[in-house]
């Protein structure tokens, strides 16, 4: 199939591993899904200290379950990416550990206190869910299938995040202040979650033409604001003055783009902020430390494959 034919046929869940797709499509889809998968893993890195630091046993259980889900989503997504035939999961995980793999801007910042938890667990997860729901209609079928399970699970994450936020927002004055401080700090990053405005985004046009993406960055950001600004206000959070957000008066909002620090955003996008180095360094060390186990499993697999002499695997 050539790229014109791909654009012609592009539609929800239209292409699967049995289609003969041009490299341009397969590379673009790999880049997009690998980014998504990497983000699941790196988000989990940010949240894992709070399994330990959760202030009740139930919260600890919920946090452990949530981090577990994120790794599960990584598992689904790397497989969806792998099935495009460009890179193996091992390659993608190596790239992530070596600092070549890209991931969401929000996961490049440190998260230090419990009051920051809802910034990721409610707002960023909410934003992710908003985007993921639209990806159920992506053209790469294995990606859409991964989204079915991810979206099924994610509702728990958003509610868990909201529950923590509610507890802080209705807690002591100190807790409320900590929550507002965290919100002030994280809000611009959360807005940038959806990336630059459409005319600055380099990958959108092609991805939209071949059906990988079904909504633009701007549309997604606005859809997010429409649902989440009222939520923030409901919990008594004040929306920071900058970036300016215009209330269109019809239940929709708009962000004044130039109020956001795009230089920082693009530094992060290149994995080049201090936080990026810190997070990626952790990943590299911990992956390296268990390399011996993967080698051991590979040996076992080779030995048992030799013993069984099974027919070659179908894909």
């Amino acid at each position, binding site marked *: 199939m050539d790229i014109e034919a791909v654009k012609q046929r592009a539609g929800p869940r239209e292409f699967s591993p049995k289609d003969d797709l041009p490299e341009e499509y397969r590379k673009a889809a790999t880049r997009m899904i690998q980014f998504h998968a990497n983000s699941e893993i790196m988000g989990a890195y940010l949240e894992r200290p709070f399994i330990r630091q959760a202030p009740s046993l139930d919260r600890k259980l*919920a946090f452990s379950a949530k981090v577990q889900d994120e790794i599960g989503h990584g598992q689904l997504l790397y497989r969806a990416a792998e099935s495009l035939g460009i890179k193996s999961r091992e390659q993608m995980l190596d790239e992530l550990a070596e600092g070549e793999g890209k991931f969401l801007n929000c996961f490049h910042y440190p998260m230090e206190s419990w009051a920051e938890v809802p910034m990721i667990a409610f707002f960023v997860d909410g934003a992710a*869910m908003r985007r993921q729901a639209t990806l159920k209609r992506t053209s790469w079928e294995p990606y859409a299938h991964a989204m079915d399970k991810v979206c099924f699970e994610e*509702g*728990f994450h958003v509610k868990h995040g909201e529950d923590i936020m509610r507890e802080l927002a209705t807690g002591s004055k100190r807790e409320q202040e900590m929550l507002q401080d965290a919100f002030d700090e994280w809000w611009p990053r959360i807005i940038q979650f959806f990336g630059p405005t459409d005319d600055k985004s380099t990958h959108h046009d092609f991805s939209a033409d071949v059906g990988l993406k079904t909504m633009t960055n701007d549309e997604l950001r606005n859809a997010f604001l429409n649902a989440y600004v009222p939520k923030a206000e409901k919990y008594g959070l004040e929306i920071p003055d900058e970036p300016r957000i215009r209330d269109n008066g019809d239940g929709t909002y708009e962000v004044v783009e130039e109020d956001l620090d795009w230089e920082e955003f693009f530094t992060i996008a290149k994995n080049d902020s201090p936080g990026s180095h810190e997070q990626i360094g952790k990943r590299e060390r911990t992956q390296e430390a268990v390399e011996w186990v993967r080698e051991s499993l590979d040996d076992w697999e080779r030995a048992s494959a030799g013993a069984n002499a099974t027919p070659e695997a179908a894909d």
Partner: protein
Amino acid sequence: MIWEVFRQEDAGEYHTHCGNVHAPDREMAKLFAQIQHGRRKPTNSLWVAPKEEIGEVDTEDAKFGGTTDKSYRWVMGYKDLDAAFAEEVADSESEQEEADEAKRARGGDD
């Protein structure tokens, strides 16, 4: 040799198990499967896999989802929060409720 057959009705849907065929190899299994399992029911694609290559774990061997309370990992575990503010959260909630009901109806565990 027995081959298990999985049918996908439309592009983008899941392949689900629909039966099996006896065949000496994969090529013959595909030929037989398309007639036996794809000749009338709507079919977009079929997969065949050797039966002996399929591993199974069932409720005799496993306690799927555990035997103690795991409501912390379900949307329904979080009370008095409105999911309707975002369609995708509400959808997840109803999908989870459905899954939970199906699980309970099956009477497996609690």
